[in-house]
Structures are given as structure tokens and as C-alpha cells.
């Protein structure tokens, strides 16, 4: 009795996640007849059509925004990962010069964020408005990720590093040859965090990017899917328009796919508690 109740609750929770995804994909593949018959949202299309994907991916607003988002995500994640790893390593040994003040610099942003308007002003003063850098530089180092990584570095077996030093390895070699290879799992998780944050970046784009030609995918998604603005033939590729609902759902799927692609590679690390061990430290 209790057992079947448990199973039921968990099944409902999982269905609440899976059913929307299923329906969104189904609608994105639907023909005009199916969309009309279902009244908008299609769960079971009678035929599979890729027209909507062809329309959004053959040049036009969505294609450009996808390229922009991919670019920001790749460059941003790379920069973030380097800066975060280096900073975490720099803070990983107690008693080094300026260790405490630098640690304080990292910790304070966790407690106090500067606020929307001062953040906007600094980006404006640096001349970063309407540049892609405005979506990367202000968030290039996430203090929380630094703390997680630093805690992980500090729990690595010191003896290995000490013996490497005795063998003449410098601090940089220790990082490159010993620390990083032992930290692959946590680095993967942190890379995922950064990549997801860049890919999903919406508010900063809303704030800093006025030029619609530079819009990342999330802003396109907001305009044409959430706010239901009409996408005309001139904004899409191709000549004939697929059903609007299918186009909207195809954009939605496009924005979810990258996350679904990386997720399985990193997800198993969560359950292993890679992060949690570091968080408590």
C-alpha cells in the first residue's frame, strides 16, 4: 500500500517533467492539419514533419541567435573555467601571501551583490553595452564555483603533491600534472554550470544588448515564443511558413537540445556527490 503510493507520487513527479518535453517535441514535428485539429498543442501527431526546423535553421533570426548563443557559451565557458581553476588553485594553500584578503574578496560577493543599477553602470562605463563581452565578463568568475573548486583542491592528498615538489616540480607543474587530472569530475560539473549559465543568460542580455541583431537565443525565445510575436517569412529561411505553433516549439526544442546533450555526461557526477562533499567544507 505505502509502496504503491510512493511509486505513484514519484511517477507523477517524473511525468510532470517528461510529458511537457514530449508534447513540445511532438508539436514541433506536426503538420498544419494536426495543429489545427488539436487546437494548438499536439501530443500525438499523425505524421512527422521537419518543416519547422528547416525554416528556423536555414538562415534568419533564429539561426543567427543560435550561433551567437553557441559562441558566447563556448568562449565564456572556456574563459570561466581557466579563471576559476587558477583562482581556486591560487587560494588552495593556507598561509600563502595575501591568502586571507584574497579569500575575503571571493567570499564577500556571496553575501552582497552590487545591485542591478550599479552593475549596469559599470558595463556602460567600460563601453561594453551592445557587445558580446557584456554577457561574459561580468559573470566570468562565479564566487560559489571558486569556493567549491578550492575546497576540492584542498582535500586532494597533499602527499602526492609534496612528493612531486621534492622531485623538483614547480607549483604550476603540480597544478597541470597532478591537481587537474585528479579533478576531472568536479571540473566537468563546474564547466556544465558555467555553460548552462551562459547558454541560459537572459537578464544580462535584456539589460546590456539593445541591438536585435546581437540577440542571443533566449531573447529570441522570449520575443517569439513567450510573447508570441509573429515570425514572418523574411525573418525565417525558406518560402512557405510551417504552422506557427510548430515553429515556436522548434525554437524551444533548439534551446533545450544543448542542455540535453551535455547533461548525461555530467549528471552521474551529481549523484556521486562530487559537489556536496565540497560544499560542506
Amino acid at each position, binding site marked *: 500500500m505505502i509502496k504503491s503510493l510512493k511509486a505513484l507520487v514519484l511517477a507523477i513527479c517524473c511525468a510532470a517533467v517528461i510529458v511537457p518535453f514530449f508534447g513540445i517535441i511532438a508539436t514541433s514535428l506536426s503538420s498544419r492539419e494536426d495543429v489545427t485539429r488539436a487546437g494548438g498543442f499536439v501530443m500525438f501527431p499523425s505524421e512527422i514533419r521537419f518543416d519547422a526546423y528547416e525554416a528556423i535553421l536555414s538562415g534568419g533570426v533564429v539561426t543567427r541567435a543560435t550561433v551567437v548563443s553557441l559562441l558566447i557559451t563556448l568562449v565564456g565557458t572556456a574563459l570561466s573555467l581557466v579563471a576559476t581553476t587558477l583562482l581556486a588553485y591560487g587560494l588552495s594553500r593556507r598561509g600563502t601571501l595575501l591568502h586571507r584578503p584574497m579569500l575575503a574578496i571571493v567570499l564577500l560577493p556571496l*553575501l552582497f*551583490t552590487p545591485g542591478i543599477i550599479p552593475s549596469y553602470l559599470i558595463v556602460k562605463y567600460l563601453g561594453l553595452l551592445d557587445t558580446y563581452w557584456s554577457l561574459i565578463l561580468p559573470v566570468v568568475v562565479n*564566487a560559489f564555483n571558486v569556493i567549491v573548486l578550492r575546497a576540492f583542491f584542498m582535500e586532494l592528498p597533499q602527499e602526492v603533491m609534496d612528493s612531486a615538489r621534492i622531485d623538483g616540480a614547480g607549483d604550476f607543474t603540480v597544478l597541470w600534472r597532478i591537481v587537474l587530472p585528479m579533478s576531472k569530475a568536479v571540473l566537468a560539473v563546474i564547466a556544465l554550470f558555467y555553460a548552462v549559465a551562459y547558454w*541560459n543568460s537572459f537578464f544580462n542580455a535584456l539589460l546590456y544588448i539593445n541591438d536585435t541583431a546581437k540577440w542571443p537565443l533566449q531573447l529570441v525565445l522570449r520575443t517569439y515564443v*513567450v510573447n508570441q510575436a509573429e515570425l514572418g517569412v523574411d525573418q525565417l529561411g525558406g518560402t512557405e511558413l510551417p504552422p506557427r505553433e510548430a515553429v515556436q516549439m522548434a525554437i524551444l526544442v533548439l534551446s533545450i537540445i544543448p542542455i540535453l546533450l551535455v547533461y548525461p555526461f555530467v549528471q552521474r557526477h551529481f549523484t556521486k556527490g562530487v559537489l556536496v562533499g565540497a560544499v560542506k567544507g
Partner: protein
Amino acid sequence: MRARLRRDKVFLLVALPGVLALLVFHYVPLLGNVIAFKDYQPYLGITDSPWVGFDNFNVLFNGDAMFLRALGNTLVITLLQVVVVFPIPIALALLLDSLVSERVKQVVQSVLYLPHFLSWVIVVAVFQQMLGDSGLLNNTLQSAGMGPVDIIGNPDVFKALITSQVLWKDAGWATILFLAALSRIDSTLYEASAIDGANRARQLWHVTLPGLRGIIVLLLILRLGDALTVGFEQIILQQAAVGSDVSEVLDTYVYNNGILAGSWGISAAVGLVKGIVGVLLVLGANKLAHKFGEQGIYQR
């Protein structure tokens, strides 16, 4: 000193880019808060805009209707999220933890964590497709001969809607910390209590919940620090549809009033006070937790 510099130069050098980024984008903007004390005019710039003392802060005290509305909505939403959203991941974690099959557990976890990684734009779009006028729910109701229900864009249920969105997005992910705490509870405690004749309910009360107390206190303290911060992106996306009466919160007030409407000084003042109150709440709650013998957020 010079010897230490020579010894630690690699550590200092590698930390530099990250520290610099934090200084420029977290600390310099803190100085930008001076415009809360100025009548900031964009064409004059920060230094040339005239000082106005605490004038901008008047809005906090003179019963300004727009400010009070934003404050009220923020507090109601925070309360809803603490009362409704906070306990559910604990229950979910207990449920997951009691699963015998590791495989099932992993699959369920993978599914439930996923929405956490979707942007608010996506989550809002998904909810529109499920609950909107031509969404799944209303299509199904219609084919069953029942009238449509108005959820998306209905001001009356807006707070319930955003609460359920938070739940959908993050309830699964929030179990992660509770599951870790559960796995650290000493299993001999369960065995000992079983020998003493404790049933499942008593074990839950005397073993499991005390084992979770530390993490619950920690998360509540952190949540309290965010008491004045509620889903900015989530709300700004849906504000147009329901009007600002039910949806204006402090962050959207700062954005709408400052960046969009140009009341820079007043908005910066509100943002500054909000930030300070947040810090005070965290530190206060932490002190309280220490008094009750809990570890709180920092330990030495």
C-alpha cells in the same frame, strides 16, 4: 616578505585574473551605489551629478504606493516560497532515499534534476504550453466538454503560478543536499532505535529529522538572506500579461523604475537598502542559529 613573495609567486599570479574580474564587476559597482545619494543624470555622469543626501531614500518611508506594492508582493511571494516550496524537496528526498533499487533512484533523480538547468524563458514557455489558452490542459478539458480555465495571464492566480513554476524547476535539484545529509546519517542509529522498539514514524522523528537539522537551518538562513529577492527573470517575463499590481517586486521595481523609467537615484537607493537588509538578515539569522547550538553558515 620577499622570500614569501618568491615562494608564493605562482599562487599570486594565477589568482590575479579571477580576483581582478571580481574587483571590477563586484566591488567597483559597489562604489557605484553613490548614485543613491545623487540626482544622477546620465549626461552629467556619476561625478558631476549633484549630491542630494538621503532624498532618494524618502521613497522608502513616505508611503509611496508603488514602492509599498513592490515590497508587499515580494514578502507575500517569499512567504509562499518558504512555506510551500521549502518542505517539498525534503519530502521528495525522503521518498527517494527510501527507494531500494539504486537504478530506479538514479533514473528518477536524473529526470527530476533536469528542469533546474533550463532557463526561466524556457520554463515560462513550457508552462504556457501546458496551462495556456490553447495548451495541453485546456485542449484536454475542451475535448472532454468542459470550459477552459484561465491560468496564464490571470492576476488572481499569478502568485500560485510562479510558485508552482519554482517548484517544477527546482524541487528536484533541491533534494541533492538533503540526500547527501541523509546518506551521512549513521545507520547504526536506525538499528539501535529499531531494537528499542521505534516504528518508522518514530525513527523519522528521532533519527532522520535531527540528522537533517543542520542542513535545514543552513538553507533557511540562506533563504532568509534572499527574502527580498524573488525570481526576477521569472517575473519580468510574465509581468506584461498580468499587470504590475500583483507582479511588481523589489527587483522589477528597481529595473522598471531605474533602467526603463530613468529614476536612477531612487532605484539605486531601493536596491542598496535591499542588499543591506539581505546581509543583516543572514547575519542575524546566523547569530540566532549559533545561539541554538547550530553550525549556521560559517565555521572555522
